[in-house]
């Protein structure tokens, strides 16, 4: 019996997307080790990769990297198809939707920090909507909104600054440091 080999034809683009998604996945795993005071309050380090990819290669590649990271993250963390996975997915989808819009803002005035803050707010909004309509349909959830908003603002700004710094670096340099 001969072993059958299935070979998918991949392009350099695919490899590049996979490499970026792998960076993001590494940050997701790293972040899982950081204790959180409240479920949902997380730095979202993996989004730094999404932002850099968005600035360098455009929205389509960023969407691939972000969604691959969510699916692979679910598999690695063992939360695939669990509520946590869907929360992550809804956050990522909302973030990407708003990034598609604010990616078109004039680059002279708006940088990665703007993208990051919008994405962070969209991320938590998407998650909270899913939580409200699916998991905890309870008005008491509203009391946590300011905490989530403050976390989105702080982490969004910090991630945006980090992404802006890496985006500003020459590409070859980045390959060495990341």
């Amino acid at each position, binding site marked *: 019996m001969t072993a059958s080999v299935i070979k998918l034809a991949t392009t350099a683009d695919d490899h590049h997307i996979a490499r970026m998604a792998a960076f993001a996945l590494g940050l997701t795993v790293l972040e899982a080790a950081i204790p959180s005071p409240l479920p949902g309050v997380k730095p979202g380090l993996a989004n730094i990769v999404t932002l850099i990819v968005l600035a360098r290669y455009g929205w389509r590649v960023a969407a691939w990297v972000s969604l691959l990271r969510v699916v692979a993250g679910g598999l690695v963390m063992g939360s695939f198809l669990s509520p946590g996975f869907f929360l992550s997915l809804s956050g990522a989808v909302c973030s990407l939707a708003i990034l598609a819009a604010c990616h078109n803002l004039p680059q002279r005035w708006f940088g*990665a920090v703007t993208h990051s803050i919008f994405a962070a*707010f969209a991320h938590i909004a998407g998650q909270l909507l899913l939580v409200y309509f699916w998991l905890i349909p309870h008005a008491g959830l509203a009391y946590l909104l300011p905490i989530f908003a403050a976390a989105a603002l702080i982490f969004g700004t910090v991630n945006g600054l980090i992404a802006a710094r890496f985006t500003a670096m020459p590409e070859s340099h980045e390959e060495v440091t990341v």
Partner: protein
Amino acid sequence: MSYISNHLKIGDWLVLFAGALFTLWLASLVWHGGAADKAVIRSGGKLFRELPLSRDLELEVPGPLGNSKISIRNHQARIASDPSPRQYCVRQGWLKQAGEIAICLPNQVSLELTGSSKRYDSLSY
């Protein structure tokens, strides 16, 4: 600081500022809605009296051990004295927010503040 200013453009500052305003607005909207306007007093599990917090007064509520004294002042309410041995409800002091409650278990008297929106004292995920 130069690191931050190097990577923040004018629009970024605007978005940051707008985000901060939005967060503060959200906080004031959500956290100040919990103002109490009524005191609900129960004795032996039954409703004894519902009083508005706008009027200052003192009230004696009878229970199996004796009378608990409730006072309302400055939109706040407390159990001023109670015959229960451990005095937990008295030591709780003034109740201010909707959803706060003081319960004198041995004397079966409770004082709860309610508002337009009911606050929850616990949420589980």
